[in-house]
């Protein structure tokens, strides 16, 4: 039997606030270098977007994705200034997966935040702001648009 995946649809503008909150801190599970990841999400005209839901998936500090003691998944929503925030431990992998859900997006968008340039597109590399802060802005469409993946 082969079933066809259900059609994805937009998150819409009314994702419950209690679902969007309270899941953006991945620290306190395993030892590691604590970092804060923050950024601003904007649309075509440069306007910052409120209530954008961002989910991340990352390895533990040793690079493992299946460590039963480390849940490498988190969720945050942008505030009225378009800013989201995660607190986590630095993964033992070159990047963190990002997924974006929002009203006006027919389905999820996928991208990655890299820690170092390496092979990555420079728009996917986090900007270091101090020892423990990474900045990763997301431009959905327009000048300086973030590259997204279509897999």
């Amino acid at each position, binding site marked *: *039997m*082969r*079933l*066809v*995946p*259900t*059609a*994805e*649809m*937009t*998150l*819409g*503008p*009314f*994702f*419950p*606030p*209690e*679902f969007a909150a309270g*899941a953006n801190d991945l620290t306190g599970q395993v030892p590691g270098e604590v970092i804060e990841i923050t950024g601003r999400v904007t*649309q*075509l*005209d440069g306007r910052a*977007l409120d*209530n954008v839901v961002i*989910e991340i*998936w*990352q*390895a533990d500090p040793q690079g493992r*994705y*299946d460590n*039963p003691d480390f*849940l*490498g*998944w*988190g*969720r945050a929503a942008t505030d009225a200034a378009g800013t989201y925030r995660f607190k986590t431990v630095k993964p033992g*992998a070159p*990047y963190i*997966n990002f*997924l974006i*859900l*929002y*009203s*006006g*997006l*027919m*389905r*999820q*968008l996928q991208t990655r935040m890299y820690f170092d340039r390496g092979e990555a597109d420079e728009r996917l590399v986090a900007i270091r702001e101090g020892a423990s802060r990474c900045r990763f802005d997301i431009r*959905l*469409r*327009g000048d300086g*648009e*973030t*590259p*997204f*993946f*279509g*897999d």
Partner: protein
Amino acid sequence: MPYVVEPRDPLTQSEGVVAGYAQTASRWPGQPLARRAPGAAELSGPARLERRLPLGRSDLAGRAPRRAIGQLIEIRARVADEDGTPLAGAMVEIWHCNAAGKYIHPNDANDAPEDPNFYGAARLLTGESGAITLRTVKPGAYPVPDSGGWWRPPHVHFSVWGRVWLSRLVTQMFFPGEPLNEHDAILNAVRDPAARSRCIARLVPKDHILVYEYQMVVRGRNAALAM
């Protein structure tokens, strides 16, 4: 066994700028989406998400004298992957507006009344057969602001997790026989008629309640069975 997730079929999955849905032109990327070979980060996924996301109630309708206004319904939703294998212990988030078309959300400017006995969000885990059951009231239709008269047909929002990161599914369930279904910019952005009709639940009337059955298929299947 290796798990595979193939690229989306543009006939059964919508994307891009959609006529009649203005925000898509400001938000969907203008550049083509890049292809990447899925690796360990994409073919793994969160287990036991209830560690971070607390489970919630499975009854949004309540009981008299605190019963929500509206037609009492039961939604029986099942989650399976592309092999048809039911997903047990999968997290399912559900949210919808009340019978008058009003969400419990600060950004909902619709002047429809709130219902103090209605709570519009549920978070459940699927059982052994991959299914969840939600008792609730049927949501109303609601107008989309500044859209030239677009009314969303009654629908229920779903968010589910499959086996791996690439299996994440966020979608909407529609109700059969709703005239607004024919005009909805979101439902009709799915070009394949069969894929579109699978987004509409099946009505199975029971003695004391209207039951709607719905199946969600998340992306991915076992490579060994794919031959």
